[in-house]
């Protein structure tokens, strides 16, 4: 991992996470720069989701230090933490929509909690967000159990974006989408990053997403970041897993 990165929105230092006696993350360092889209890859089971969940505070760490927006999350008071949480949005792998609320209520839930706005504006913003993630207004009154997998992802993204966060965590956003839908999704993330100045932390296995959407790629292996840099750096790397990943049959197909 390269040294200090200026203007880092997420700064992870030396964190270790352990489940029982298995060390999942072992002294990991990572910086995410403001305004970039960081693609985060690694073998299945390497701990990509664990790192995401550690940063957002769902998994306790054994040691290390995590700063988000320059605030040390361990030292932060509960009101500071809430302020940080209001500034990030999270798209969980399975969507994690509230099953007893409609799509409309799901998207409005965080807005209603944090902002004092009228129902009219809430509805208008909901439809704007639905439009942004490429859903028709008719889905607004459906329940999550009545949606397809791709629609759930989109609604979950709309909910993650409901408060116009500065930072979004996307956990495998394009898995389970058809290639056209996945391409649209990448384009959407790009557009949002440009228009809203969003920083995106994206765990993904989708080579297309890595090529088209990501500014920088970080690779997780053996509990550490084994490489971080641009796509060109990744392709030039001699690390065996990286070579297999970026020069494999599927990668060649994507690169044409």
């Amino acid at each position, binding site marked *: 991992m390269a040294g200090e990165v200026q203007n880092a929105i997420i700064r992870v230092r030396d964190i270790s996470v352990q489940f029982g006696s298995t060390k999942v993350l072992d002294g990991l360092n990572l910086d995410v720069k403001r305004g970039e889209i960081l693609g985060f890859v690694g073998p299945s089971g390497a701990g990509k989701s664990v790192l995401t969940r550690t940063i957002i505070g769902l998994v306790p760490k054994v040691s290390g230090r995590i700063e988000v927006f320059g605030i040390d999350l361990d030292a932060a008071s509960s009101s500071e933490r809430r302020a940080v949480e209001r500034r990030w949005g999270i798209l969980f792998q399975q969507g994690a929509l509230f*099953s*007893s609320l409609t799509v409309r209520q799901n998207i409005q839930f965080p807005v209603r909690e944090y902002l004092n706005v009228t129902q009219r504006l809430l*509805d*208008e913003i909901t*439809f704007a967000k639905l*439009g*942004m993630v490429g859903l028709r207004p008719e889905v607004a009154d459906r329940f999550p159990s009545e949606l397809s997998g791709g629609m759930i992802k989109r609604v979950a993204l709309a909910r993650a974006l409901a408060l116009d966060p500065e930072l979004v965590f996307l956990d495998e956003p394009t898995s389970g989408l058809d290639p056209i839908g996945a391409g649209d999704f990448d384009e959407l993330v790009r557009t949002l990053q440009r*228009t809203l100045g969003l920083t995106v932390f994206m765990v993904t296995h989708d080579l297309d997403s890595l090529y088209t959407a990501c500014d920088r790629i970080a690779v997780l292996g053996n509990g550490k970041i084994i490489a971080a840099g641009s796509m060109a750096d990744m392709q030039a790397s001699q690390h065996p897993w990286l070579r297999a990943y970026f020069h494999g049959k599927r990668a060649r197909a994507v690169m044409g």
Partner: protein
Amino acid sequence: MNVDPTLERMARGNGLALCATGTWTARFAGELEQMVSDAERLRGSRPNISIDVSQVSRLDTFGAWLIERLRRSLTQGEAEPRIAGLSADYSSLVDEVRRVKAMPAADTATVTITGMLEQVGRTMAGIGGTIVGLIDMLGGVLAASARVMTHPRSLRLTSTVHHLEQVCWRAVPIVVLITFLIGCIISQQGIFHFRKFGADIFVVDMLGVLVLREIGVLLVAIMVAGRSGSAYTAELGSMKMREEIDALRTMGFDPIEVLILPRMLALIIALPILAFLGAMAALYGGGLVAWLYGGVEPEAFLLRLRDAISIDHFTVGIIKAPVMAAVIGIVACVEGLAVQGSAESLGQHTTSSVVKGIFFVIVMDGVFAIFFASIGM
């Protein structure tokens, strides 16, 4: 970095410019909405209105939408207000919200007489549906047990034993404790009131009959409905939500045979055992209180118990137990399979599993009371 947003009115040429400044983001959504609503009243007051956003330092979806809303409400016929000074960074965001169409309002349910009547009708039809569902499940379980009887190897023994541990072995401490306490209370109350007539010793008759015939089994059945019936509904319901039951079906397994039969079997074995243990604990508790509080010596208690109680009382109690277990199990499984996609539905069906389970247990108890009375047991 965050500057309070403003929307100022300035005369410009022959028209009016609305100059937006500051941070137009979600953080200030409340204030922004207020300012925009005020500005919307300018509609029609002047022919030439433009919106100047060159001084806006930050813009997000909320701000962009409110500017778009302002533009829409100030539009008169073909004369659409111009948005000036939009930086290249934000123009795509404004274009994005421009595509938002007028939206359907949320459905609001109004309470009407017909609506209420309809609800009553649906509830009544639902009761019929419940009974049909129970009979359907009973049939399914009987058919599955017939299949298992002809092919005994297809019985899921491991699963049955696992559920037996859950509903029987692990329930013993709480069942014994509660029935022990109930025995103590019955005995104490009996002695307290019977003493007025000098009939202390008849507390043994009352305790024996009540515990062995009714309280023992009924109380244990109610506890099992709350403890294991709810667990069955929640287990099956969450499996239904995650499509695990559909997965079983597509692999050629019958969910009734794989999931429900072992659970039913475990419950039918467990309830008589628990009812027996419960009855013993209640008699023990009652005897203890009779001795310590009523001064009835243990020998006298046992002698009296032997005279007062025939084996019929015990048989009546134990015969009821497996039937009640079957009722609890069937209700729990029907409710489990009726769970829909949401967490709320899981909660509703778990509640109704316990409520209906207890209701049917008490109804069954009444039916049994009539039956045993008429055959003279």
